[in-house]
């Protein structure tokens, strides 16, 4: 290995160490707040609030909304949880009053099941599409046309490799201490 290569290895190691240290600090920072000091019941309330829609403010959960109805629904959720209701019981309680649209997550049954089934199917189809597409592009032969003539217009990619070769050739002539090939 030449001196230059060693130097390069050393430098990149230093930089890598610094980068990793920075990442480590960042990661530590993220983990500093664990939120363990929040009462369990409050955490449950928040996650339920996020799943229940405010019936009079389109598209907003009761967690988000500033509407008086949302405020009172939030307190109902908290109250019922303290009384020992489960999350599902509370959801049912609101569904009875406002219909199934009060839940922000569609139920996993009946017609709403379609909402859940289609996305994973779409992913499978997408994977398939990538595969088929690649196969197809492998098979299709390029248009022969003017490619073989002398007047070919190069794509950037080709220009680059073309110029790289020229540059490499020039490099060999220019460098006073000869070509810097690995010894």
């Amino acid at each position, binding site marked *: 290995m030449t001196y230059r290569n060693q130097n390069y290895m050393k430098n990149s190691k230093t930089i*890598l160490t610094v980068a990793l240290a920075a990442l480590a600090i960042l*990661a530590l920072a993220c983990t500093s707040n664990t939120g363990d000091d*929040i009462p369990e019941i*409050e955490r449950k309330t928040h996650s339920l609030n996020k799943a229940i*829609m405010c019936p009079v403010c389109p*598209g907003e959960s009761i967690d988000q909304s500033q509407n008086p109805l949302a405020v009172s629904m939030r307190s109902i959720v908290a109250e019922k949880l303290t009384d020992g209701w489960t999350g599902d019981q509370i959801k049912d309680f609101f569904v009875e009053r406002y219909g199934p649209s009060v839940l922000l997550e569609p139920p996993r049954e009946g017609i709403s099941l379609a909402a859940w089934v289609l996305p994973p199917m779409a992913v499978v189809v997408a994977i398939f599409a990538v595969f088929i597409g690649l196969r197809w592009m492998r098979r299709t032969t390029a248009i022969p046309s003017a*490619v073989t003539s002398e007047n070919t217009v190069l794509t950037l*990619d080709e220009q680059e490799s073309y110029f790289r070769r020229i540059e490499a050739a020039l490099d060999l002539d220019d460098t006073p201490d000869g070509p810097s090939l690995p010894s």
Partner: protein
Amino acid sequence: MIVESGQLALVLALLATGYAVVASVMGVARRSPELVMSGRYGFYSTVILLLVATAALVHAFVTNDFSVRYVAENSSLAMPKAYTWVALYAGNAGSMLFLAIIFSAFALVAVGTIRKRLPYTAPYATAIMAMVLLFLLAVMVFLANPLSRLDVVPLDGQGINPLLVHFGMFIHPPVQMTGLIVVAIPFSIAMGALLAGKGGNDEWVDLGRTWGMIAWLILTLGLLLGSWWAYTILGWGGYWAWDPVENSALMPWLAMTAFVHSIMVQKRRGMFRMWNMVIIIIGFTLAQLGMFINRGGPVPSVHSFAQSAMGWIFLGFMAFTLVASIAVFVSKVDTLKSRGRLESMLSRESAFLAQNIAFLAVAFVTLWGTVFPIFSETASDVTITVGQPFFNLVNGPLLLFIVFLMGIGPLLPWRRATIGGLIRALRIPLAAAGVVGLIFMIVGPRQPVATVAFMTCAMVLAGIGHEWVRGTQSRHRKGENYAKAFMMLLSANRPRYGGYVVHISIIMLAAGAIGSSFYSVQRDLVMSPGDTETIGEYTFTYTGTTHQSHPDREEDYAQFEVYSGDTYLGEMEPFRAVYPDFRIASTRGAIHSTPLEDFYIVPSDFSDGGQAVFRVLINPMVWWMWASGPIMILGTLLALAPRREPSPATLRVPAGMRPAGV
């Protein structure tokens, strides 16, 4: 008088645009450059005419001319004059005028650039842009004229929606609307090239890419500004809720992100020619869907600012452009044969394709969730809601996969990669991911999903960093100092390094999203003046409330003294304003923001005696999301910066020097 001249200007603009369409098409058919030119000038003239119309509307606002319906509906005597700018696009008719003038200005620049560089494509592209403008103008002139008069002049206007009275509203809606309509420009260029029979000739690619990236950047900024507005004013501590209107702005962004990547494959390798057409058609269709849902579409949303039937007209136009573009595509598809061949299943090309499909999958799933309530209601009469929990669950993994691809794709060479080469290139990125994973396992609260997500981010950053270090060092060895070597590296291949800068900004965005979704701490506290509470490191004392009465609103300000550990952070003053006329309460959080985390207080309810309910949040890393914006702009500009390339015409390949594999 001024109002009437504005009305006249709108009608004239409509006629000029119609003429531009006809003259451009006829000019090509009759091979008459003069006719094409006159069509172009007709199109240019709309900018001036629309300026006149806009000036007339502004004048009506400034002079409180409530005889103009739009002014009466969107302003009042009490409205500060600065909000005229917001009022201009706050309602339906005004937003149409805004879209029209913005589009005509952008199109003017676009036509100016295409005209010289794509002489065959230009007339078609001009005609298509003119058709889009014609649609906007026809809607204004016949259905929603922003300058129409009322028979009875009210004494005062109805006023502006108070949720719009915020600094963010000065920029977010116009930027968002601009982004959506500017997508029409790359669409027109692509379709114009296709119509001219030049779709397989890659000359349209450079300009198509440039305008695609401009549209992408504006859409990105629109989304970021919208999130920022939601975070600071909607006052629930979040920034994104997968609301239908948010989704409808996200979908075209996803498609355009796919486009700005796949177009590179055509630029570099002469491949993906059909695919690029398909994507830009999808992109423009989704952009129109965005405008449709935003304009009183069928899905309820916080953001649909103007309920009206006009949305359905947008839907009609969308259906028309979709059918027409598919027809053009099908009739010209044989001009789109690929020049290159895919040489290996493992190559940069295949990574781009996977990325494209992944983005479209997210767009599709988002579309599905957004429109599903309509399906369900028509099919079974059951009204349901598809909201945040659904999208988080379904889109989360897909987005993570996209971030993962962002780490792999750029490491793959064009044409052909080997497994061994990929593993070698991935050594350092994977090591970085491993280190981050290890740290989380040792010290972190064990959130497996967040850990994997952060590991993926680390992998991407390490991949980019490694390549920059390597490139800079190899230049340094040729005698450039490190700073110069780095700058030269960036400017040597601008699309590539600009892309990396954008990738870094996306990682910042992702880090903010991951940090705040998985590690956010939220509490709702009832506090009386004098109470002190502690959350995490923050200790805060509620000192009291001041009340202010304004003609249109009642405001309650709450004062807090906030400490982090022993350090005094200062006084924080969140407030809540109630607008009785609109029955709207608007809260503004007080935020102490650091790169590490945001400390966020927002009042949710005030009762007598100064007691109040506050929501207090610690949102880790949100700062990075807003900081990513400027970096994103920088990266995009770098990627767009023109580079002196050898003119293709003079670049002939000597026999024998032709690279193998062509």
